[in-house]
């Protein structure tokens, strides 16, 4: 899959009497439209063969070893995403735990080592089902910062991630910061 350019078109201010050139049309119009339609950063990674053992009451990275799309090459092999462009991203994640007894499971996002406010928490009983916990947040990410998905539980013993799908982490760029200047 093609990698998009890691930049946002910068819209210049036109001067009175300025002649419109093909170069302007391409960089100011074509590239801008193309960015909005097809080149906004977006990425999706998921667990395919990776797995992890979650210790009791300990936030643990969800391992994500497969990539569906990564327009700006942000994901590393562990599923940690480093942003190439600053802005607001919708971040979507899910951790899937193997069937176990009744207790709470949770997920959160961690931005540059600091938890992002807001978690998702569910309880699930011993019904033989895997347990998925999902979370979606708008997160401001500065270029160079990284974000990861973590899972948690309070079972009192270790719990494994689902071996055929530990979860996923998706990102979709929505807007530059309001105060952004090129």
């Amino acid at each position, binding site marked *: 899959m093609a990698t998009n350019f890691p930049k946002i078109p910068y819209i210049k201010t036109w001067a009175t009497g300025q002649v419109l050139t093909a170069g302007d049309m391409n960089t100011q119009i074509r590239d801008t439209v193309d960015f909005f339609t097809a080149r906004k950063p977006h990425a999706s990674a998921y667990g395919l063969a990776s797995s992890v053992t979650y210790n009791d009451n300990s936030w643990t990275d969800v391992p994500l070893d497969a990539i569906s799309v990564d327009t700006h090459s942000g994901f590393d092999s562990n599923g940690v995403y480093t942003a190439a462009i600053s802005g607001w991203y919708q971040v979507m994640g899910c951790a899937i735990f193997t069937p176990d007894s009744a207790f709470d499971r949770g997920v959160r996002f961690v931005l540059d080592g600091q938890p992002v406010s807001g978690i998702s928490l569910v309880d699930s009983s011993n019904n033989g089902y895997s347990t*998925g916990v999902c979370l979606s947040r708008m997160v401001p990410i500065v270029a160079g910062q990284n974000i990861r998905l973590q899972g948690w539980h309070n079972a009192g013993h270790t719990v494994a991630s689902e071996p055929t799908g530990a979860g996923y982490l998706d990102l979709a760029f929505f807007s530059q910061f309001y105060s952004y200047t090129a």
Partner: protein
Amino acid sequence: MVVTPSNIPAPHTWAVGEIPTAANWNSYIRDAFNFPLKFRPIMRAAQTSGAGTSIGGAWTDLTNLVVEVDSNAGLNTGTGVYTSPNAGWYIVTGSVVVVPNSNADIAVRLWQNNSFMPPCAFATRHMSTADRGQVNVTKLVYLAANDTIRIQGVNSSGGNLATVVDTLESSFFETFFFSQ
């Protein structure tokens, strides 16, 4: 205006000396900007009225949805199946809300093209006697044109659980075109 698969504007590279005509100004500038501004496919539906769905012990399609907006008429409201009008990446959200039960796990997932597609977008929740049960999932999903996607629910009570039909707290299904 309804956007059809044929009218997502294609980028146009301008040649030196090319004079913009009204036609290509409208196609490559007006239409091109209008698409990301307000014509991206969007669908939003919920079980605000009607028959709802009986969620069983096997994965069950969320059916009988009432459309709030469906820019490209992609949703079959009876079956709950959304057919993609344009190829691209969509943000898809699904939620299932069922009546109270004393001891059931419920789960929701996205289901694309009648088959399992990893990663399985999947959420679960345990229910107690007094409360409605609700689970939701949001995922970035690639849909080719005419791909189908739906919301499915399941429960472990040993019987069926009806979804809540309500103007405020019902199950819902949303798709939003994000990018080619």
